[in-house]
């Protein structure tokens, strides 16, 4: 048995009233790819933040190489050899890719001046390794979420850290990019002996790349297993503590009435000539690679992106949607891709975030009626199974999955006719995912139509009645439930055959 390299000893972490980790102890060996998996709220991100020097444990110790270490700052963490790639990252949006990668590094300076040539060259190498069609001078703000993630990972890998921690790195990647990343990770492991901590709830990935896996549940340590010794169902069981049945029910909710019809939607440079129909009770998927224009189509349906051409018909009446207010008026709701920046208002409480859209309905005689509001939020919590300690806590105190449930609840409580979902289960765990799916399936039974954009093919295929696939701004194919399989979607998404 190899020497323990990193040891977590009785780690407990409290945030105000919430306990994120309780007495967690396990060890990671040098040079292994150690996966950590668990549902949302299980404490994975907290563990990672402890290693990254962002927070300190309330009690317990982290030992490195047989010595206890107090990782008090990010600098200290980097000094110890950690490189952390976070899930939702603050980046310098207004700087170029090259500058972001070399941010704070001594390599960026030669004498008194910035070493632009060197940075650009090295950045280009990295981008090529990841097969990203970007240039080093591009401003990070203009990149898609997926591309930003990859830049982050490239940055971490470039400096050849001793310990690389990746938190949900493949969240927005295509299969191709994921394979490249796995290759790079394996290279790091074999050639440089890097220890890799890989946090994910994509169990197939864990099976593919991990040596060992540690399971956390509700902030507690459950078990550590060799990846070869477990199968996916066993993993899920350990994670969730219960058996999950994958619901692939036969959807009989689709009605033969057209709810939404769009004709020739065009926004120069983003999408072209998009036409399709959405029926009542139908879940329509929009498939395609990152950059195909799917999010942009949704944005234009919601009034957040101008339409150069095209018509929108809701229930057979043409509507002009110039702003999100218009869209809401016509019964459309949107769950944006970027939860942190486009859905949540961090300074506001859970209750406030949840009731944002329906606030008008909770008003009696000019003032917000507390009784009505409280009753409403109680219903919401029960209906959607939102795990919360106190409703006046900031929304940021909830786990990703619960946050997303709040966002979903926010829209559904407004009784929309059409719900647009952009990556609805991004960054949430298996258990919560299933809950979201069942929520979506429930509401279509009442005749609501849903359009789902998703980069997770299994999700798309399981959930949708029909899938429209886009490639570089155009629709390349359509598949119904029987025809839908990963191969077919990918073929359309790459505009092959």
């Amino acid at each position, binding site marked *: 048995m190899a020497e323990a390299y990193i040891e977590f000893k009785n780690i407990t972490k409290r945030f105000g009233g919430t306990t994120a980790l309780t007495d967690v102890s396990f060890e990671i060996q040098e040079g292994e790819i150690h996966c950590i998996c668990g549902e949302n709220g299980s404490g994975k991100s907290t563990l990672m933040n402890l290693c990254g020097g962002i927070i300190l444990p309330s009690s317990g110790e982290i030992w490195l190489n047989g010595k206890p270490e107090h990782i008090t700052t990010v600098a200290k963490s980097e000094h110890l050899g950690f490189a952390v790639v976070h899930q939702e990252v603050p980046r310098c949006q207004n700087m170029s890719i090259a500058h972001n990668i070399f941010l704070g590094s001594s390599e960026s300076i030669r004498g008194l001046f910035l070493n632009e040539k060197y940075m650009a060259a090295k950045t280009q190498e990295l981008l090529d390794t990841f097969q990203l069609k970007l240039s080093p001078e591009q401003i990070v703000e203009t990149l898609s979420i997926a591309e930003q993630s990859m830049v982050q990972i490239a940055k971490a890998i470039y400096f050849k850290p001793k310990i690389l921690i990746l938190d949900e790195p493949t969240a927005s990647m295509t299969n191709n990019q994921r394979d490249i990343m796995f290759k790079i990770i394996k290279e790091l492991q074999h050639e440089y002996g890097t220890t890799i901590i890989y946090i994910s709830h994509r169990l197939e990935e864990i099976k593919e790349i991990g040596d060992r896996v540690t399971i956390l549940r509700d902030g507690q340590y459950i078990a550590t297993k060799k990846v070869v010794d477990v199968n996916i169902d066993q993993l899920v069981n350990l994670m969730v503590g219960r058996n999950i049945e994958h619901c692939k029910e036969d959807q009989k909710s689709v009605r033969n009435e057209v709810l939404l019809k769009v004709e020739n939607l065009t926004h120069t440079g983003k999408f072209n000539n998009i036409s399709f129909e959405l029926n009542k009770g139908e879940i329509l998927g929009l498939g395609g690679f990152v950059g195909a224009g799917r999010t942009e189509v949704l944005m234009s349906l919601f009034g957040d992106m101008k339409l150069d051409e095209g018509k929108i018909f809701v229930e057979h009446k043409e509507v002009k949607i110039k702003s999100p207010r218009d869209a*809401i008026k016509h019964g459309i709701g949107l769950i*944006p891709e970027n939860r942190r*920046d486009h859905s949540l208002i961090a300074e506001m409480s859970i209750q406030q975030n949840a009731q944002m859209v329906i606030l008008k309905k909770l008003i009696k005689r000019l003032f917000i009626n507390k009784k009505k509001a409280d009753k409403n939020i109680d219903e919401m919590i029960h209906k959607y199974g939102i795990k919360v300690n106190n409703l006046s806590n900031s929304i940021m105190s909830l786990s990703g999955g619960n946050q997303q449930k709040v966002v979903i609840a926010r829209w559904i409580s407004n009784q929309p006719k059409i719900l647009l979902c952009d990556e609805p289960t991004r960054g949430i765990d298996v258990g919560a995912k299933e809950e979201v799916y069942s929520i979506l399936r429930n509401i279509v039974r009442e005749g609501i139509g849903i359009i789902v954009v998703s980069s997770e093919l299994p999700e798309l295929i399981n959930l949708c009645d029909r899938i429209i696939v886009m490639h570089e701004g155009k629709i390349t194919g359509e598949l119904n439930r029987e025809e839908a399989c990963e191969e077919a979607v990918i073929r359309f998404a790459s505009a092959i055959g």
Partner: protein
Amino acid sequence: MKTNQELNPIKESELHSKNKKLFREFGILMVLAVIFVALSIASPSFLIPINLINIVRQTVEIGIMAIGMTFIIIAGEIDLSVGSIFGATAMFAAVLFQKGTDPTLTFFFAIAMGSGIGFINGFLSTKAKMPSFIVTLGILQLFRSVAYGISNGRSISSFPDSATNSWVFGFGGNIGIIPVQVIILVAFLVVAHFILKKTKLGFDTYATGGNKKAALLAGINIDRVKMICFIIAGALCSFAGLISIAYLQSVPTTAGQGREMDVIAAVILGGAALTGGRGSILGTAIGALIMSIIKNGMVLLGVPAFWQTGFIGAVIILAVLLDTRISRSNSFK
């Protein structure tokens, strides 16, 4: 399928209880208490009722303007023109009073002018997509000239009886021992507090300042919200100007000049964040009160003139430091 809720039941009563942690304004309230106690000990004249009433009265003008500023800062904007709105509308009203215009009409004209300037600020900051810092800076200069222009460079001090006997000039008087303007300030504070915390407008203001994009996507009309905040601020500035006329019975051309810094300081001291989404009327009131108390304290203690501004600056820094400490230990980060 069992939900999380059923597996981990949470006590219903705990769910809705207001945060048991210290409320946000606690830090600055403690600062106020400390200063108050310190001055009571250091100076025998501090606790004299007349002095305390003076302090509260001296807080009125800044306080009323700070109410409007609170809305604007919570909404994520800034208004540098408050001093000029104050001065220009006061000048305008003074000229009308002098000419013998019906005082009630003059009152409404003044408020209308203030609201109008606020409207311009709001319009340019939202529809014309200009940064409010620049817009209000320009308006500051513009309306300072207007004040000079209206008055032809002179103070306006003599008012006919038709004006001085009117209810508007009653703002400068007392009811018993309590100045009328203090009652007005308190009334505005209460109303503003309710608007911010209990109405949709207040909610939308916090949302707009907290995350503009998210608020927009949730269907909030952020342009309208900001516009309303600027108009409220403008109207309140002109109200403060009228109170000033009533109390001093004179409007110098420099009226209001430089006050914007005091107003903004009061709001920030009270815990508002310049980035928006945070702040409260209670906090602003405490902030304004702290500044008045310090100014008063320095006179009572005979602090040398040159130290006075420096002292205020030091207290502001210390107060914000203390407040950040307290709120950081409470927050989730």
